[in-house]
């Protein structure tokens, strides 16, 4: 069996770029999709994904499983995710440290919760359930936060470290979310990274953000802008510690041309190449 191609820098795949994505040539290029968008019976988007997945490694990024919800993950949803994994054999599978379901409703957002030991036990159980259903380990993404909330018993890095230790899952480290949360809640992004189990990082997300139009002073993780320099700097600092990791440019909202996205992707690829080379001896 041929070795899986090494993942370097990748792009979020948008329908308007299907043809260009299929034709794209770049070493280590891979694509990520939102799993829920492909949980359909048939039609052109699945056909495109099949074609693209034959040429480039794929990552399935779930947004709706509500792993931090009090309710257990929806069994039908888990089954659909498992079926997608079986069909596409993705190189990476990820979900979020967030909830979205309560009382029969699905709220299309990634919602926060007090990080209590009770919540930790619930999230661990749900991640266990997910990994069992898929027959593989998954990566869990850190959230963008807009309020400190009361009632935390663990810091977020400690919560994630416990989750990793207890379930064997990995981390999807979204550096834009770290930057946004740090700005909104007034903590140090570098300090946050220092406290994480960085060995568990299996994927990195880079994205842009915006200032809240509602003038709250908050930064909003809207994936609608190029990656800012502060986030590129966090990425360099992280890669110095971890070495190269598959890194995704995530631009979901009003994406520019494919060429522009590839240019940003290429910048990430260069960082990853540099991260491979050992640091020159300091004189």
């Amino acid at each position, binding site marked *: 069996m041929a070795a899986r191609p090494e993942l370097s820098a990748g792009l979020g795949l948008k329908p308007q770029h299907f043809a260009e994505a299929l034709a794209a040539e770049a070493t280590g290029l891979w694509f990520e999709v939102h799993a*829920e*968008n492909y*949980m*359909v*019976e*048939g*039609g*052109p988007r699945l*056909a495109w994904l099949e074609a693209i997945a034959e040429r480039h490694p794929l990552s399935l990024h779930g*947004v*709706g*499983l509500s792993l931090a*919800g*009090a*309710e257990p993950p929806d069994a039908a*949803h888990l089954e659909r995710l498992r079926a997608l994994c079986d069909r596409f054999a993705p190189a990476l599978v990820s979900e979020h440290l967030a*909830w*979205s379901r*309560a*009382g*029969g*409703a*699905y*709220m*299309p*957002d990634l*919602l*926060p*919760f*007090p990080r*209590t030991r*009770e*919540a930790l036990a*619930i999230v661990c159980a749900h991640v266990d359930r997910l990994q069992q259903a898929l027959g593989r380990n998954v990566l869990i993404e850190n959230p963008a936060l*807009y*309020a*400190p*909330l*009361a*009632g935390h018993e663990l810091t977020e890095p400690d919560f994630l470290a416990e989750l990793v230790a207890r379930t064997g899952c990995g981390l999807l480290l979204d550096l834009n979310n770290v930057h946004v949360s740090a700005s909104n809640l007034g903590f140090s992004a570098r300090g946050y990274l220092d406290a994480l189990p960085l060995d568990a990082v299996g994927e990195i997300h880079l994205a842009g953000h915006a200032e*809240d139009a*509602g003038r*709250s*002073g*908050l930064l*909003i993780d809207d994936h609608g802008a190029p990656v800012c320099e502060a986030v590129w700097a966090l990425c360099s600092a992280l890669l110095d510690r971890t070495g190269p990791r598959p890194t995704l440019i995530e631009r979901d909202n009003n994406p520019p041309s494919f060429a522009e996205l590839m240019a940003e992707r290429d910048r990430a690829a260069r960082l990853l190449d540099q991260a491979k080379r050992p640091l020159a001896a300091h004189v």
Partner: protein
Amino acid sequence: MSDLARFQARFARALLDPEDDGAGLGLGPALAVYRNNVAAAGVEALAAAFPTVRQMVGEDWFDAAALAFLRERPPEDPRLSAYGGDFPDWLAAFPPARDLPYLAPVARLDRAWLEAHLAAGPQSPPAALRPPADLSAHRGTLHPTLRLFRFSTSVPSLWLAHRFPADTPGDLAFVAADEPLAIWRPQHEVRARKLDPQAYAFLAACRDGRSLAAARAAALAAGPPGPALVLAETLSAEGLLTGFTPLDPRP
């Protein structure tokens, strides 16, 4: 109920009710951010699913209606592409739409387009098929993505003029009319067209499981002869009809 469940139930209520002040959640200005995110995602999904409705009433009217629908009937499922199955019925009862009797039917057609777009179907292109010699012993099978309609108003013409503007003349009135319509995805792209009375009668008979002989008779009864004789071939060339199966011989 765990503390987590209690917190989340409270949060969900606050998200969907703009009058809720969020007391007890400790969210501060973040509640507005989350509310906005949820509203934007829900309205965007409905806008993508009902583009003809949105075109007809304009973005402001549509987005306000979509937001009202979202708060009353939030999604039950993270497959947002499929959200809004009961939006057409809800629109029919929505007081501001009272004077727009074509709107809910147009929404039904948008929904049918979406369902055809996402449905499972054969990947191979359609091909003209000749029916078997014994028409009374066989029935026609329709494309699995086909949605068949017969309207007593010009809603199909209105919808087609918006949805496929290159194919149809613009500026049509909402009037009484006999308009059968087919929406289906023969291969990769959704197609839609009005059906002449013979084609509709033939397809409806196939849908109802009747024999090819009965379908042909129905087509002949619906209009002048000629086209009805080669209906099976022309409809299969378009992918509306995909094959022929023997009828159950039991009486």
